[in-house]
């Protein structure tokens, strides 16, 4: 039986907000700090060789989960196994097998060159001296930075710094790579470039666990996706299977101008589609509807509007995305 790359059971992390002064401790006053469950019972199995995505809005608990896997945080309760090893009892063994890119471009030495940064981290990763040079050349080639390796990092673009951080994570030749929001802050070209590098990691037989709040990224890149919200996993499957769960082929966004109550028009629309979301601002009602066929739904929507005295101003038909899945399971948009 193969060992799972990552396995967590009922993983919980509670943070305390605010401070407890020394005076309060001495007087043994009751602890009145707020407790915040950043991760609230996550069960996860990441199989070897897959690209697994944790998708969720900011503050959903993705980064906290990653940090617990990477030995930087101690869980409040629950168990973790990384490549079959417990990070709580054998943290150094986990770190030796794990390539992690957590806070991205900030985490490099700007007054050192790219190569000097990697030389430094190669020693920290205990790469044998005889192999260091070749290993650095390999990872630089893998992230396509070989020609700029001897420039100071302060002269790199954001995308290059992000790629150097990825190269650093590859230094120990890790079977498991964890990437926290790898493309955040990158322009579209640099993001595409980094995603290509991630696909290559899978082709090399490595397991990749990544977090993102970009649904396209999760959709295009991941073999399986866990949607995470308020510290819990609310859905977990392949992107295609997740999209099938909302039983719609197409998504229609409508902008409706109306004066009176919006309820009648929403009720009428709901007869021919699932109204996933509606939001009113001033005289405009924005509606997202999931339907089997836009060709049938759109004329029905115009009829519904006309019969309730409203006017449809704008219609947009789009294929189902993970954003819609998130909307369906949480009732909120990913970016809210």
């Amino acid at each position, binding site marked *: 039986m193969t060992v799972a790359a990552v396995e967590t059971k009922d993983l919980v*992390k509670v*943070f*305390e907000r605010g401070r407890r002064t020394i005076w309060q401790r001495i007087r043994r006053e009751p602890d009145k700090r707020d407790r915040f469950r950043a991760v609230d019972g996550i069960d996860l199995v990441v199989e070897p060789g897959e690209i697994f995505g944790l998708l969720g809005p900011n503050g959903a608990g993705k980064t*906290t989960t990653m*940090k617990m896997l*990477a*030995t*930087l*945080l*101690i869980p409040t309760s629950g168990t973790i196994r990384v490549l079959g090893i417990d990070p709580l009892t054998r943290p*150094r*063994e986990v*770190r*030796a097998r*794990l390539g*992690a890119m*957590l*806070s991205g471009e*900030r*985490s*490099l*030495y700007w*007054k*050192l060159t790219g190569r*000097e940064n990697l*030389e*430094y*981290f*190669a*020693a*920290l*990763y*205990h790469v044998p*001296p005889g192999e260091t040079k070749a290993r650095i050349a390999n990872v630089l080639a893998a992230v396509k930075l070989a020609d700029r390796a001897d420039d100071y990092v302060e002269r790199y673009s954001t995308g290059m710094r992000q790629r150097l*951080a990825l190269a*650093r994570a590859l230094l*120990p030749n890790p079977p498991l790579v964890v990437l926290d929001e790898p493309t955040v802050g990158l322009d579209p070209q640099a993001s595409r470039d980094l995603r290509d590098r991630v696909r290559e990691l899978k082709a090399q037989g490595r397991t990749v666990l990544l977090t993102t709040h970009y649904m396209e990224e999760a959709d295009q890149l991941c073999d399986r996706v866990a949607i995470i919200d308020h510290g819990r996993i609310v859905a977990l499957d392949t992107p295609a299977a997740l999209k099938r769960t909302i039983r719609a082929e197409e998504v229609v966004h409508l902008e409706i101008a109306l004066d009176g109550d919006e309820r009648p028009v929403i009720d009428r629309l709901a007869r021919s589609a699932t109204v996933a979301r509606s939001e009113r601002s001033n005289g405009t009602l924005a509606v997202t509807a999931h339907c089997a066929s836009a060709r049938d739904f759109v004329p029905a929507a115009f009829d519904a509007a006309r019969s309730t005295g409203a006017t449809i101003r704008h219609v947009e038909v789009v294929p189902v995305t993970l954003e819609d899945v998130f909307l369906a399971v949480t009732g909120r948009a990913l970016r809210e």
Partner: protein
Amino acid sequence: MGDIRAALAVARKDIRSFSRYRIAVAGTVFTPLYQFVIPAFLFGAAFAVNGRQPGLSATLGTEDLPGFIFLGGLVGGLIAIAFWGIAFSLRSEMDMGTLEPSWLTPTRHETFIIGRALGGMFWFVLSQTVLFAFGIWFLGLRLRPEMLIALPAVGLAILAMVGIAYLLAAVVLIIREANFFVDTMQFVVGTMSGTAFPVTLLPGVLQPIAFALPTTYAIDILRSQALGSRPLFDTGLEYLVLVILTGLTYPLGRWAFARAELTMRRRGMLAQY
């Protein structure tokens, strides 16, 4: 073995990246020169009678003003390395975000203290060499060959300072106002060790603190051997106390550092910018 190489890599990285801030490198020599060495020398010289130092002689049993100042400065420099070079710079790495990827590697976290201490020693030796050269050329600094007998005391003081650096790092990684803490504590420890004046001049209530610091004995041994000044106690006894204090400081520092690390992992403080 891997950790020894990692410590050397930390030292090399520190030396490399610091050497690229030229003004800061110049500051390691010039700041002690204008803040302490030259003003202290001219202040002391204002008490000179026909080129002699009857006042200093009455206090210490030696008239060697430049020797007194430079040897105090030497241990003061060591204290500065522990406070700024090791503890505070670890905190800066945390604020810059580079501590997190370093702690993701299999290298022991305390290796970063050792590596920084090695890097700090490089700058310490370099700046003290320039300072002593300045003293010999311009201020008439002369040291007796007996100073060599005091070198083990300097070695012990270095070990003790690494122990203190562990302790400091533990505090500095957790508290908010790290800069103010390091600034004031460095002054207090330096002054209480007798870098600028003999600890016997301190008010009585403060003297027990002075005698609890390993650096107090290192400075005293150094001055009595190199300048022939009156020691606080018998040199053998001072060596014994220095060994005991170093032996206590080191494990206490490591323990505190391990506790701080645990707290950080529990509370998730590593990447709090």
